[in-house]
């Protein structure tokens, strides 16, 4: 197995990663950079637990090779909070009890951040469309919808 060194920019910090080539981005984030917020749930880009913002767009970290993320601005859930407070999407998820086991939660939160960046006042249908890229097996969808609705600019 060949060993490579790549440079990744994650949450506005530059990292140099040396390891086996051809690993998924989510694996490198978790194993090498100590960022467990992105999770592999299915490994084929369906469940959304591995969501990473790549230049602001939500992508499946299990389908991207780490090498493909070189030169991109990567954001994980760990990069969202401000110095001493949670990001407003994170706070809304707490206020609306929008999670249970929370394995999927960072994916939903990042999906919401990206949605509101592009579309500050999405309709319910637009919220459902955007967030159907993630799966919540505990079934917290109604509260997730409530959390995102509360963040719409009027």
């Amino acid at each position, binding site marked *: 197995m060949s060993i490579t060194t790549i440079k990744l920019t994650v949450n506005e910090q530059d990292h140099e990663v040396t390891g086996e080539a051809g690993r998924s981005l989510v694996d490198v984030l978790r194993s090498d950079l100590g960022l467990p917020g*992105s999770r592999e749930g299915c490994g084929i880009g369906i469940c959304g637990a591995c969501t990473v913002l790549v230049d602001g767009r939500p992508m499946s970290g299990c389908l991207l090779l780490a090498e493909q993320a070189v030169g991109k601005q990567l954001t994980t859930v760990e990069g969202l909070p401000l110095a001493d407070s949670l990001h407003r999407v994170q706070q809304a998820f*707490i206020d609306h009890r929008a999670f249970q086991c*929370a*394995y999927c939660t960072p994916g939903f939160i990042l999906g919401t951040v990206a949605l509101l960046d592009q579309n500050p006042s999405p309709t319910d249908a637009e919220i459902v469309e955007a967030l159907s890229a993630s799966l919540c097996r*505990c079934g917290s969808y109604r509260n997730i919808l409530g959390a995102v609705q509360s963040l719409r600019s009027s």
Partner: protein
Amino acid sequence: MAVGRSVPMLDSDDRVRGSVPYVANMQVPGMLHGCVLRSTLANGRITRLDASAAESMAGVAAVVTASDFDVPGGPVSLMAAMIKDQEVLARDRVRYIGQPIALVAAETAAIATAALDRISVQYEQLPAVYDLMEAARDGAPLVHESGDSNVFLHGKLRHGDLDAAFSASDVVIEETFHSPIAQQTSLEPHVSLAQWNGGKLTVWTSSQGPYGVRGALAGIFAMDEPDIRVVVPPVGGGYGGKSGTRTEHFSSLLSWKAGGRPVKVLLSREEEFVTVTKHAATITVKTGVNRDGAMQARHVTAYWGAGAVSENTAALARGAMVRLVGPYRIPAVNVDSYAVYTNLPSSGAYRGAMSSQATWAYESHTDSLAKAIGMDPLEFRRRNLLHTGDEFATGETLHGIHFVECLESVVRGLEWDRPIEQPGGALKRGRGLAVMMKSTSPITKSECRLAVDSQGILTLFTSTVEMGQGTHTALAQVTAEAMGVPLEQVRVVGPDTEITPYDANTNASRSTNMMGTAVQQAAEALKHTIVEAAAPLLDLPLDQLTIGGGRVSTLGPAPRQLTYEEIVVGSDVDAFEAAGEHSTSARLDPETGQGIGSPHYHQGAGACEVEVDTETGKVRVLRYAAASFAGRLINPELARLQNDGNVVYGMGPAMLEEMVFDAGQVVNRNLSDYMIPSFKDIPDLLTSETISEEEGEFHGIGEMTLPPVAPAIANAIYDATGVRIRDLPITAERVLRGLSQ
């Protein structure tokens, strides 16, 4: 009051920051990655197994095969269970595709996976049987030759004179319903990390049953249980699927073989589908009813597919007897519950275990009965639902029964009396109802310890597993209320078998009731200890003291007070501590099923309005109303979220979920082909109510609104189109086939 308040989960901050310490996240220095070689044959003899090429690969630290077992000083291959039919690793026989044969631990996951390919296995194929009903027939290929049939359990319930009651009934209807194999699909897969240190073993695992895992490992390694420590950090979803020993033995065996190095075993999504599944069930319900609407007689015959190993199925299929009857007054009831081996992966609890399959059958059937006597299904249920004081089919007199309130709640929630607005054309709308009755674990125990320290902090030591249901938050609320302190003063520790006492599995919606009651016991004992300690400090006898609001006060005018903190410090101890315990021992006669079926019964209902596209068969659930009986509510918002979550989860087995097999091989073993409900698959409008009782006991609510989902939808489809669906899931194809007949 801490109880009754909708506080967010205690670790909400971690949950939105992505910093919950799931086992899947764990990495420790020197950690090896373990993986599993699995059978590619559904039934056969292993004629040759050669792992030498894997063992000699660079980066491979350990390979474990059956040859490591049952040798002096080695582990024991047969796993403990009611029926000992499961080897940790196959020795000379495989019985399902996916059965573990060998284990590898390596420096990286990639090396471990590559090493699996270097293990050579040769088989001699044997005839296999996959279909549950075929397997139950005489002459079917035997999954285990030790018996003379694949049916390994026949549970019987006998109540009243069934033949006479059928003869006296005006109408008798018999229908058969089927539920397919499904998968629990927790997003955090099964995962564990094990490490030996001398003769002691520590395992971190994503499990619903730390003490069950400890017991299983003690059996495999022939060790004393206290020499094994099982730690369970928050779990990324369980739904029953994490109730058994699933990976813990693999990581422990690999660490043992690798000289104690830590080994993590994290299953892939594909492996999840061969690790544990929902029981397939074929259930025939025959009921006699009079024209005035009174049910007279019922005979339920249920076949449960166990897969190739029985694990807990014998107990579940026996326990299912009281879940198969339904929440109705029926003077004569017989139940026959059969557990059957097939050459498929093993089955275990799937949220609403056995109840979902049972409710699918008896609640679809309820509408058929109502139709047969020309009665409105709502009125028919109102006339027959069980009440407190009624005799159940077990012969027990029921207490705490709220089926009518559950039913009336969903009738209100759905606005049942409002006329249906038919959109016209190919779209047809209809409404359906379902009510469910479920037992909890009949014989079970929960223990806890509660301590107060010199800062006045209360620490609850509990082995109840936090898997997203919010149980640690609820137990902290119970602690805070019982001790009269703010919630912020309470900590919850565990599960960690080295420091937290015994609890049975966190399943069967038992924790809030069982552990909640144990916590109340511990709090009473701790308060007694605190008052005793305060007496010398206040220089008064016990009967001159009172405890409340987090302090001990003297009676009489000008009372003096001491806080817990002051009493601990004044007594010159580190902390005071007390234990709590709650146990139940419901029991049924094994021959007749008569006795007590459950310490109390779980109760829920659902009502919905659906729209069927009669051109495509597609069904949309427009509105759904759910209700469950919650006893005394601890956290209303989190309770409602359980109700919601059950409906959403229930949409899966109702409309989407079926594991499809081809000659024993799972065809749809990932989420691209095995659909679980997404944001787009839930009812357009969902309302739910938790029916509570201020002075009542705590009830579990982890499953109650799930089993009604499928029959409520099927009944609504029948109402809309006259098509009766009897096989799950309710796919567009099935509906269309029904429409064309």
